[in-house]
């Protein structure tokens, strides 16, 4: 048995707003302001959730419940797939040393399930760094397609913590100023928070999950092969699974976090697959940050909200084309109906992810 899988209602809380519709409007308006986060004597731009609340757990609870409201009514036995790279680390940091972690490293997922009122059965968790969201979607999709479950919720959750910021800072991966996707002057990524969720179902909706693939680029733990060939290979596999040609893709949501090496690898990969030219290229990370384990679900929810509005927003932060990349993202918003959109992820730790959505006419 193999049946189509569809994408249903979604929820999203990120720096640009507290619902997918609000985020779509903000993206169309070009909003991309960020705050700052201190790390020792350095400070880095930072996309925080739009909340006045400062207590870590209260912020998490509010954001998850808000996302749950956007999803609509759900049976409490709906399987929940959680994607995160940090889970409750930020909460542990708020408590006095010696630091303690739960024995089971994803026990925070139970709390997330409770907030979503999906706690009748234990949640499943995925921690694949930046591609965690697509890994979780891939797993849920596999079970629905095989008829083993009928519906699932995939939740991406990445909340403020000093450990991740410090780790990325130590590796000199962060921009001290701003995220500039595919720009000649890009100098690193900007982190952000997000909680996002999406319903997957065997029941038809306007958006079908046409393909999803994850892969490995073993060039380095911290960055992809500069020539982009492992990324290109995965893009090709994903197109093949969807039964599409590169020319069928109307829009690409890039990884494009503004990292010098990763943006180059992504551009090189795209040129290998889209040999006769690329469709519009869009990065969302300059609008609400690189939200790591949540990014797959958060960017999918934001993109579908834009596409439901027939809008392709401009990519914030892009000013100067990079001749080495020879590709540039959208510089102005436009109205366009998109039939097939491809979403690309390139993960810290060697993970790759690619997903294609198809609008069912």
């Amino acid at each position, binding site marked *: 048995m193999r049946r189509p899988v569809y994408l249903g209602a979604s929820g999203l809380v990120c720096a640009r707003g507290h619902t997918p519709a609000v985020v779509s409007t903000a993206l169309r308006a070009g909003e991309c302001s960020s705050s700052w986060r201190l*790390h*020792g004597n350095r400070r880095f731009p930072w996309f925080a959730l739009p909340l006045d609340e400062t207590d870590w757990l209260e912020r998490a609870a509010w954001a998850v419940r808000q996302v749950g409201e956007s999803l609509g009514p759900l049976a409490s036995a709906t*399987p929940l797939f959680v994607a995160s*790279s940090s*889970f409750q*680390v930020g909460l*542990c*940091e708020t408590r006095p*040393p010696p*630091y303690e*972690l739960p*024995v*089971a*490293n*994803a*026990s*925070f*997922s*139970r709390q997330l399930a409770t907030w979503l009122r999906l706690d009748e*059965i*234990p*949640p*499943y*968790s*995925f*921690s*694949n*760094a930046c*591609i965690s969201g697509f*890994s979780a979607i*891939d*797993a849920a999709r*596999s*079970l629905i*397609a*095989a*008829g*083993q*479950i009928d519906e699932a919720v995939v939740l991406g959750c990445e909340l403020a913590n*000093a*450990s991740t910021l*410090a*780790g*990325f*800072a*130590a*590796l000199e991966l962060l921009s001290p100023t701003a995220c500039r996707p595919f720009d000649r002057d890009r100098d690193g990524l900007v982190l952000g928070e997000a909680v996002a969720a999406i319903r997957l179902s065997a029941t038809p909706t306007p958006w079908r999950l046409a393909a999803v*693939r*994850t*892969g*490995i680029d*073993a060039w*380095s*733990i*911290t960055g992809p092969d500069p020539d982009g060939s492992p990324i290109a290979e995965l893009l090709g596999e994903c197109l093949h699974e969807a039964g599409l040609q590169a020319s069928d893709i109307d829009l690409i949501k890039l990884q494009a976090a503004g990292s010098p090496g990763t943006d180059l690898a992504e551009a090189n990969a795209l040129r290998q697959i889209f040999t006769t030219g690329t469709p519009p290229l869009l990065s969302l990370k300059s609008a609400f940050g690189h939200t790591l384990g949540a990014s797959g679900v958060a960017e999918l929810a934001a993109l579908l909200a834009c596409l439901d509005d027939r809008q392709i927003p401009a990519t914030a932060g892009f000013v100067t084309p990079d001749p080495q990349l020879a590709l540039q993202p959208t510089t102005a918003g436009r109205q366009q109906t998109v039939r097939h959109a491809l979403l690309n992820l390139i*993960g*810290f*730790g*060697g*993970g790759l992810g690619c997903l294609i959505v198809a609008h069912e006419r």
Partner: protein
Amino acid sequence: MIHLDTALSQQFVPADLPTAVRSLLGKPLRRAPALAQLAVLGALACLPAERRGRPTALLWQSTSGPRLETLELLDEVCQGSGEPLPFTFLATVPASAAVQLHPFVPGLRTASTLPLESEQAANWHLLLSIAANWLNEGRYEQVLCAHLDHWSDSLNGHWLALSATTSGSAPATLRAATGEAAIQLADTPDFPVAVARWLAEAPGQPLRLHSPAAPGLAVEFART
């Protein structure tokens, strides 16, 4: 048909891990976190050399996750200078185990890390269901399913290696649970220990892994 090629379990005292790796590879895995080293040891024990280039997926779950490494990072970030050593941070990224494993299993196409939310239960039912779906679709030729834990006093690796094509010696097959009588087992981290024990006995009833919370994902092994 999905074949079970291997069921094995490994245990190490943390201090012995580098020696085990060196004796297997002839060199140390410098700066590789313990879970990554455990992944290499287990994967190579599951896959004979001639199968390591075949399209392979790795699905591994963990109760501990990089717990000790995360505590070290918290100490460095929150109590130390605030600037951790890069490798202290990298050791907290479990997904990086795939990069460490890839040179030894060049056919490795994807890997997914599934941290567990309970210390009592495991998600073998999920791993095996996904693995069977992928193999049935022809997406990969073999899928390694594992449970890896790194505690302060022990390192544990439990493995089940599945494939779409048998080498002729596969001792069992994997299928969706049937209605026939079977030995029922709970989904616990050391499930492969029970599988290996069942394989060592004379052929009899199938071995069923049943998770009450996910009845649609019940699977069972049958002797070939």
